[in-house]
């Protein structure tokens, strides 16, 4: 029973990732693409958890935190780039 549910959940997550890839390609503005990329990162976390259940090993569970942190940092950097045009600002007064 639980195997069927996990396979079904993997199918749903894969379909949702395909839909988000459609939004990345189509998206009219840059902000759309960034939102869809962030959601792809969050979906990747879910797929990693499900894959580690399927393979029944807890070696992949450390990657989950890493992917979450990377997606968050990427989104913050893109937001700053969209707003100010640079990512790392330098104060030059001289």
């Amino acid at each position, binding site marked *: *029973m*639980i195997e069927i*549910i*996990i396979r*079904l*959940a*993997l199918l*749903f*997550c894969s*379909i*949702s*990732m395909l*839909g*988000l890839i*459609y*939004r990345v390609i189509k998206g009219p*503005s*840059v*902000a*759309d693409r*960034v*939102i*869809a990329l*962030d*959601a792809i990162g*969050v*979906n990747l*976390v*879910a797929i990693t*958890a*499900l894959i*580690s*259940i399927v393979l*029944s090993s*807890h070696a992949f*569970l*450390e990657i*989950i*935190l890493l992917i*979450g*942190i990377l*997606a*968050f940092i990427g*989104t*913050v950097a*893109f*937001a*700053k780039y*969209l*707003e100010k045009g640079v990512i790392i600002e330098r104060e030059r007064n001289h």
Partner: protein
Amino acid sequence: MSVIIDFLIGFFILVGSLFCLIATIGVIRLPDVYTRNHAASKAATLGVMSILLGTFLYFYALEGHFNSRLILGIIFLFMTSPISGHLINRAAYNSGVKLWDKSVRDDLKEYNKKIVNKSSVD
């Protein structure tokens, strides 16, 4: 006992993946950057948190392995997803992405106008 645990794991994982699917339908179908961001950040976060909770229950109950990193991941997603959604919405507004033409209210525009008037008076 085992049947209850199985039911809980299946329920959490199925509900989480359905939330992911519904969030994607929202991201594809909604008309505007801001409404799309609403769909993506809130529903996908709830879905992924539910899937991670199901995975934690699976490893804890069926294999006896308490994985603290999954709980840390749940807390991290719960904290950072609204922040990143708000940041990217604010950046989209400031870089001039238009609202949907049927949206009725734009409070930030009036706020920005007030700020500009006050600074010009000064």
